[in-house]
């Protein structure tokens, strides 16, 4: 297992090598329009230890809706893999995906939304 | 019970005395020691109050109050030489050019800043300089409360009588009138700011007695009254973008050719750099002199209470008054050693705790004016020898705090005196179960800079408010009138300084008054290395001080 895949396994308990790249996850994903790379393609990158997987916007666009996880024929929790990719970045020293103090129109947002974003986009 | 064994915070021999206190408690709950008459008060003050010790005072040798008696510690500073030589200060380079300079960032300073702002002074044109952090002051430490005659059975007239009587009728009547008349308005202002006073469920203020009050008019915020007010003021000052310079003291006032005050020379305590601050009006809100440890007393005061304000004002020619009147709070902690001198708020007595001697006997009405109460405790300890001696040789009397729980219900102390409870708990003493040991402690500078009703001093361009001023309380301040003092006169100072700044024209900055003052000292034959203001007290260990080399 390559180092990146190892790291993903460590965080998500998912073995990316189980994936045979059928593309079911990408087919069901509601957010692919916004993604520069499809979910299964990102998994392929991890399999090949291509660190680009971390730079793609895929994991950040993922909304943790878990449709992919429910539909994976290999039983992979794809959303958890996306979370692992996010976590690897978030845990880097100095990395900052978002700035909570700079949320636009924050006066309109409910606590639940801010909390959800804070949980997924900050460590 | 071994005499030297510590049991729940107290030594064995103290426990024996506590047993005596417990024995008389039931009886004492039903009776209160009678109030002294005015004549009796006068007598006990003369005999036992530290202010009446002749050898502790001397007349000032120079300046506007030449010949007036004051404690040696104060006279020493008035007769000390300036910290900076005028020729070392380049007045042509102005670092801060503001409308209003406020020296001192406690309650008075912040109140003045806010009201100056409300009066139309832009936040950027107001500068507060503060020796410690903004708000670190005696104001934040005040626990018990603030007086205001706002209940139907009360009125400014009764409050006025209390103020005058407490001050032994030596007060400036106009200031006293202003103090009591503006009181409710300032409490209302606090309420609007969001200060959380203790209230009944219908909004009625919970008020209790203080020493020397005839009505229950002490408003409190648990026993963190000062903290609650100061943190709200601080929040508002910062919200309004009023400029603040922390860890910066004023070391000299500035004047112009017209001899009006025109700002101050500031000193960055960390970089040791001086700044020239030019101002159209200057407000002194520097507080008092507790850290001078007059007659060696411990003090309740904060670290920076070193009389800077009166020194600065005196050098520009402002007249002072009543500096011989020092307030000793009757109940400072006398045990354990770590907290000696810290305040045991008068609210403890207000809620029903009686002072009792080592035999568990009452010897004074619990809420006499502060100087009278303090004198009675000193008499009990040193004349009648009924005090309890601590391991460090101090003496004190018991304050029977468990009575509060009996009189007001269990849990009252935790609810109304959380700061006190915490302070003693830190040293294993549970004041809900055991009495606490107290002795008078240096608390307040009754006198100070003379001000008129509009908070102006006798020098043009210089305003003052709060503990640095004299007159309002005469020779003795009542509990709950210090927060009131800084609120009422802080507001007035802010408003009038803002108005004054609009019209004032400042000429060329000078330190001529300092040169003159130095000359005056020389002429009076005063030869000393002592310099003032001292800015901070010196508490370093003797051994260290005796071996200090000045190399850097």
């Amino acid at each position, binding site marked *: 297992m390559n180092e990146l895949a190892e790291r993903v396994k460590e965080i998500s308990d998912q073995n990316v090598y189980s994936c045979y790249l059928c593309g079911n996850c990408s087919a069901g994903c509601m957010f692919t329009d916004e993604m520069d790379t499809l979910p299964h393609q990102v998994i392929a990158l991890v399999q090949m230890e291509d660190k680009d997987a971390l730079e793609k916007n895929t994991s950040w666009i993922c909304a943790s809706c878990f449709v992919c996880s*429910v539909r994976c024929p290999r039983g992979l929790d794809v959303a958890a893999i996306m979370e692992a990719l996010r976590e690897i970045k978030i845990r880097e020293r100095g990395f900052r995906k978002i700035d909570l103090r700079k949320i636009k129109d924050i006066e309109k947002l409910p*606590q639940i939304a801010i909390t*959800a*974003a804070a949980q997924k986009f900050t460590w | 019970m071994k005499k030297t064994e510590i049991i729940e915070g107290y030594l064995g021999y103290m426990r024996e005395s506590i047993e005596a206190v417990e024995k008389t408690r039931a009886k004492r709950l039903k009776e209160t020691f009678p109030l002294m008459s005015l004549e009796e008060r006068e007598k006990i003050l003369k005999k036992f109050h530290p202010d009446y010790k002749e050898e502790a005072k001397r007349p000032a040798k120079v300046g506007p109050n030449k010949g007036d008696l004051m404690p040696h510690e104060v006279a020493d500073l008035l007769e000390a030489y300036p910290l900076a030589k005028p020729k070392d200060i380049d007045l042509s380079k102005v670092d801060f050019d503001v409308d209003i300079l406020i020296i001192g960032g406690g309650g008075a300073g912040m109140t003045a800043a806010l009201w100056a702002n409300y009066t139309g002074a832009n936040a950027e044109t107001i500068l507060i300089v503060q020796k410690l952090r903004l708000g670190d002051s005696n104001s934040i430490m005040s626990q018990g409360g603030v007086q205001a005659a706002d209940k139907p059975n009360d009125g400014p007239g009764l409050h006025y009588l209390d103020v005058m009587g407490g001050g032994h009728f030596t007060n400036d009547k106009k200031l006293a009138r202003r103090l009591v008349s503006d009181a409710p308005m300032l409490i209302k202002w606090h309420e609007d700011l969001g200060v959380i006073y203790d209230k009944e469920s219908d909004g009625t203020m919970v008020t209790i007695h203080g020493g020397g009050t005839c009505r229950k008019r002490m408003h409190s915020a648990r026993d963190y009254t000062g903290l609650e007010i100061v943190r709200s003021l601080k929040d508002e000052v910062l919200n309004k973008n009023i400029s603040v310079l922390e860890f910066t003291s004023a070391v000299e006032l500035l004047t112009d050719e017209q001899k009006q005050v025109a700002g101050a020379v500031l000193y960055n305590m960390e970089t040791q750099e001086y700044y020239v601050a030019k101002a159209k009006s200057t407000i002194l809100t520097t507080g008092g002199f507790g850290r001078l440890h007059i007659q060696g007393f411990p003090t309740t005061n904060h670290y920076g209470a070193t009389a800077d304000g009166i020194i600065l004002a005196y050098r520009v020619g402002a007249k002072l008054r009543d500096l011989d009147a020092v307030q000793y709070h009757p109940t400072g902690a006398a045990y354990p050693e770590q907290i000696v001198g810290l305040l045991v708020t008068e609210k403890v007595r207000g809620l029903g705790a009686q002072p009792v001697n080592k035999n568990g006997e009452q010897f004074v009405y619990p809420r006499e004016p502060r100087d009278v109460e303090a004198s009675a405790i000193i008499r009990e300890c040193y004349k009648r020898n009924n005090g309890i001696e601590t391991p460090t040789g101090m003496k004190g009397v018991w304050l029977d705090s468990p009575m509060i729980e009996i009189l007001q219900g269990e849990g009252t102390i935790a609810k109304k005196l959380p700061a006190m409870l915490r302070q003693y708990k830190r040293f294993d003493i549970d004041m809900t179960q055991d009495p606490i040991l107290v002795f008078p402690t240096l608390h307040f500078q009754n006198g100070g800079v003379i001000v008129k009703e509009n908070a102006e001093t006798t020098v043009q361009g210089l305003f003052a408010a709060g503990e640095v001023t004299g007159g309002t309380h005469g020779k003795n301040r009542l509990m709950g009138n210090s927060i009131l003092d800084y609120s009422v006169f802080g507001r007035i100072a802010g408003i009038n300084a803002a108005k004054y700044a609009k019209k004032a024209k400042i000429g060329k900055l000078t330190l001529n008054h300092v040169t003159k003052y130095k000359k005056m000292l020389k002429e009076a034959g005063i030869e000393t290395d002592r310099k003032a203001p001292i800015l901070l007290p010196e508490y370093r260990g003797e051994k260290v001080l005796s071996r200090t080399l000045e190399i850097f």
Partner: protein
Amino acid sequence: MEVLYYPGCSLKNTYPEFEKSTYAACEKLGINLVEIPEWNCCGVVPSLATDNVMRHLGAVRSFINAQEKGKEIGTNVVVTLCSMCYNVLKRVNLILKEQADVLKNVNDFIDDQPDYVPELEIVHFLNLLKNVGFDKLKERIVIPLRGLKVAPYYGCALLRPDRPKGVPIDDPENPTVIENLIRSIGAEPAEFPFKTECCGNYHIVFEPGIVEMRTKKIIGSARSEKADVILSPCPLCTYNLQHGNETLDRSEQVPVIFFTQLLALSLGVKSHLSTEMENQILKKIGGEKFV
């Protein structure tokens, strides 16, 4: 029936009508909701990182308080209304039941509270209703909402993921519990192919465009099925859908309400709907007499 109740932040702050209508309905149905004392924020979205146990602490602290309260009143059932809370609590509870090492880790860390013994059952209010029985529920209906077409929206958190096993309250691909509820209160469930689609979740904060794209589709689907209202079990979905509505013309909007509000209305108790909304519904069911 007495059960423990975990409200969550939205019901206390943003959407009190969700909680209030539930209380009203429960009173009618003889369900006594006992709020967990001092519950903590659940975190809204569960951490999927297996090595980040810290994220579970909020849920666990609430479990501990629930466990202690449960001992007092004799129940181990915790009901949630917010589907985000449900998802987090259910998931964390299952993890603690299955993974002794995580449980120990968490219990060791929380040294200021009693240990958690994972015996609580986390139940969503919809399942509680199901257990009461939709037939029985039908008998209690005072105002049958005949003629009202309702789009049952599930969102994600009630149905996915099935990891650990047991999180979904219904079939993740074809749930029916809300439809059953709709029928039992006399209304008609709309065929609603977008009922399990994601509203865009937390993207509302930094990428509202994504939410707008998602909710437009969801609302459009409800609209094309001629739904009068969208019924939501989730405060975040509700917020996002309402945000979506705001970006649409009035004619394209479909109002979003909480399922408990409609339930309360049909039970004849206070629905905490806006007056306008309530009148609209009553008008629709020909219930002018109720207006």
